[in-house]
């Protein structure tokens, strides 16, 4: 990096103060109606973030209740019935309502900025995706008020989900909720694929794209290819429950294993959907805070593609205990192990990026390093699972719970926190408190390990997962207590984070355009960016545009070009989203009139949308 960039940073801090008083020009100014009708990717990103984070807290609260129950043997904090609802909703919420949409929040806010675009390719479709997600999430959680939440686990194995073994509407909430969320994910992913392929600034070739953009592109492909499999499974389940078909009913010739296959054909790519955005964030943070360009950029990209591709060929590693036979088990085992190689390549390249750098251990890097350290543990326990014979002892025990929390929390969540601390100044124009951030990190780090590390042993010592209670005398007491204490420490660290977040939006230090002296294009914009992002679309000649000589000249505001015309707000996206959810409620309650009303509304909204010009 050049000294020119550094001086730009210092100037920027000064210039930022000037921006401070101009909040009315920021992308967020405007009343509630302007948010409901917005098609601005930045606002949609912020809405994604807020909703997903609230869902994260809800899922976390559910986890804390789970841990409270498991704190001691034969505890009675929760009934069996409530416990089963809580772990099902905890898993479902964390995966579909917290982690995926948190990633989507980053896609929304950052991608157009990183590629030099003014918005996504289909701004209204983008708003639609958000509203469908929000309504779908609310629908799913509304189940708590209507006879109880889904209680068949986050992968809802047939035939426990049949009407015979799951009466009432609990499972129906799950079936319809997930289908609605699928619509959101697919729409959003199609949008991002087109945006990234088609809206790159001039000169921004594929091999110059920021890594985060690349990982988003790959994730989006995974999503559009993975979701249809579970959609088909869910439709079959819906038919079984609503019309009495026998897709998963052995008595009618159905096969309970078909569900498992369809779910995991989706489910395994899904876990890479949860981690690839994290890899992207890390690949942005590490170079910035090492002041050194990403080592092995093409290898990081290709290994991401390879991981995604292999991810479609390993699903049966979740089914080693069903007895698929030695051939199938060997094939899926080998394919699974292969994934360790491209993942390792990424890890080594990150370490190599830091090697010889000048590391500033600010909060984003701290969380990024925490990510690498914790993800390795999760990855290695994954490799243990990938050996079918050993997995026979581990599957469906707390060992798996340990594995996936190390990759999901130790991996994805650590990285998302790194991303939040990193991009917060771009989103709000202010920095978060470093002192609080570091406190958050260390408490979270300790709480996290205290919670999940003992679970490896719990599993190996014979504690199955999804058990609402355990009996004394099997040696589970001490470690469970440890995990419970850890989880409350973890919860405490979240409170610090929330406090930091709320406080810094109003009182944080003003950031300026590029507080971290980062290399990518979004940092050439004022913080927060104007609603049109780029007054002039820059031409890109290098992968790290702001670290090049002349990078500081990339101020799009400086050209004095006229303010670009942006798409107009629209009510149709939220209308269509509502219509879809009404249809789903009709299906859920098996009420034909409501389904028809939903259908009619969908029809009206689609045409209203189609005939409303984008810019008015």
């Amino acid at each position, binding site marked *: 990096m050049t000294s020119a960039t550094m001086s730009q940073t210092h100037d920027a801090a000064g210039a930022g103060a000037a921006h401070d008083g101009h909040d009315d020009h920021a992308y967020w100014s405007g009343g509630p109606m302007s948010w409901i009708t917005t098609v601005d990717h930045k606002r949609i990103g912020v809405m994604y973030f807020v909703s997903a984070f609230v869902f994260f807290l809800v899922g976390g609260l559910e986890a804390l209740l789970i841990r409270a129950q498991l704190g001691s043997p034969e505890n009675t904090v929760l009934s069996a019935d409530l416990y089963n609802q809580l772990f099902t909703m905890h898993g479902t919420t964390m995966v579909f309502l917290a982690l995926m949409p948190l990633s989507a929040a980053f896609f929304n806010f950052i991608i157009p900025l990183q590629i030099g675009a003014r918005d996504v*390719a*289909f701004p209204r479709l983008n708003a639609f995706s958000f509203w469908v997600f929000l309504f779908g999430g609310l629908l799913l959680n509304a189940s708590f008020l209507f006879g109880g939440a889904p209680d068949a686990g986050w992968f809802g194995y047939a035939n426990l989900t049949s009407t015979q073994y799951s009466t009432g509407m609990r499972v129906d909430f799950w079936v319809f909720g997930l289908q609605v969320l699928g619509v959101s994910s*697919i729409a959003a992913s*199609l*949008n991002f*694929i*087109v945006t990234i*392929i*088609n*809206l*790159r*600034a*001039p*000169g*921004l070739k594929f091999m110059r794209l920021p890594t985060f953009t690349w990982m988003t592109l790959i994730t989006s492909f995974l999503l*559009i*290819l*993975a*979701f*249809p*499999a579970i*959609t*088909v*499974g869910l*439709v*079959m389940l819906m*038919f079984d429950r609503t*019309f*009495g*078909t*026998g*897709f998963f009913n052995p008595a*009618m*010739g*159905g*096969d309970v294993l*078909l569900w498992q296959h*369809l779910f995991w*054909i989706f489910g395994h790519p899904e876990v890479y959907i949860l981690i690839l955005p994290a890899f992207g964030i890390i690949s942005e943070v590490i170079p910035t805070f090492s002041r050194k360009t990403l080592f092995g950029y093409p290898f990081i990209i290709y290994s991401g593609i390879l991981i995604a591709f292999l991810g479609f060929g390993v699903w049966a590693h979740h089914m080693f205990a069903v007895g698929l036979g030695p051939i199938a088990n060997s094939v899926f085992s080998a394919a699974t192990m292969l994934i360790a190689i491209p993942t390792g390549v990424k890890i080594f390249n990150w370490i190599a990026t830091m090697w010889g750098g000048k590391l500033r251990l600010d909060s984003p890097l701290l969380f990024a390093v925490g990510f690498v350290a914790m993800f390795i543990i999760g990855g290695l326990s994954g490799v243990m699972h990938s050996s079918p014979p050993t997995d026979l002892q581990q599957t469906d025990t707390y060992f798996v719970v340990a594995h996936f929390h190390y990759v999901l929390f130790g991996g994805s969540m650590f990285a998302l926190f790194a991303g939040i601390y990193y991009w917060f100044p771009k989103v709000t124009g202010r920095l978060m408190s470093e002192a609080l951030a570091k406190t958050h990190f260390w408490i979270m780090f300790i709480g996290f390990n205290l919670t999940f590390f003992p679970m490896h042993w719990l599993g190996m010592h014979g504690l199955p997962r999804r058990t609402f209670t355990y009996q004394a005398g099997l040696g589970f007491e001490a470690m469970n207590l440890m995990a419970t204490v850890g989880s409350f420490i973890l919860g405490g660290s979240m409170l610090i984070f929330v406090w930091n977040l709320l406080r810094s939006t109003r009182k944080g230090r003003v950031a300026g355009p590029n507080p971290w002296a980062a290399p990518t294009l979004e940092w050439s914009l004022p913080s927060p960016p104007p609603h049109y992002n780029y007054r*002039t*679309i820059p*031409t890109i000649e290098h992968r790290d545009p702001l670290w090049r000589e002349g990078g500081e000249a990339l101020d799009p505001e400086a050209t004095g070009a006229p303010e*670009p015309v942006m798409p107009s707000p629209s009510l149709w996206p939220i209308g269509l989203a509502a219509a879809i959810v009404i249809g789903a409620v009709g299906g859920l309650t098996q009420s034909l009139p409501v389904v028809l009303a939903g259908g009619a509304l969908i029809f009206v909204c689609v*045409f209203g949308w*189609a005939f409303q010009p984008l810019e008015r």
Partner: protein
Amino acid sequence: MSQNAAMDHHYTSTGIPHRKLLMWTFIGSECMLFGSLITGYLVYRGRSLVGPYPIDLLNIPFITVTTFVLLMSSLAMVLALSAVQRGRKGQARLWLAATAILGLIFLGGQVYEFSHFVHEGLGLTRNMFSATFFLLTGTHGAHVAIGVVWLSSLLVQSFRGKLGPEKAEIVEVAGLYWHFVDVVWIVLFTVIYLLVEA
């Protein structure tokens, strides 16, 4: 690319219009949707515990005719696009209408087939064949129906004089969708009807 090109609202990095790219990506996703449905159909082949079985009911000559109809609708579709691109309004309307009507005929055939099956005792819940068959062909039929609605709205647009050559992109995208639905049928025709288990 010049700055100006980038400022243009229709600027795309690849030269492919957004909507066309969107449709192709969506078609990729649809491949997985139909792939999963076909998987379901194939793995449950021969697992029906009670009749009627496929061989008892599938009417190959009849379906050959409806298949032919759908293939011809694809021809009408390309001709419609070509007419719109050349600004031939009358032809465009003719071929759009033909596409939609052929689609409707196909749907009519499906409705006839379904009701015939039900009449013969093969309701949705009868056996594994009926469940997978209705789900698979029903999903395809729903796609055709959506296509018909879409084409009809284009036809209306054309009559309102709003489907000039500058709108060819919209027609092209609708056409991609339509042809894809046709392509799916080509596969289903073979997998369900011609490769029926004896």
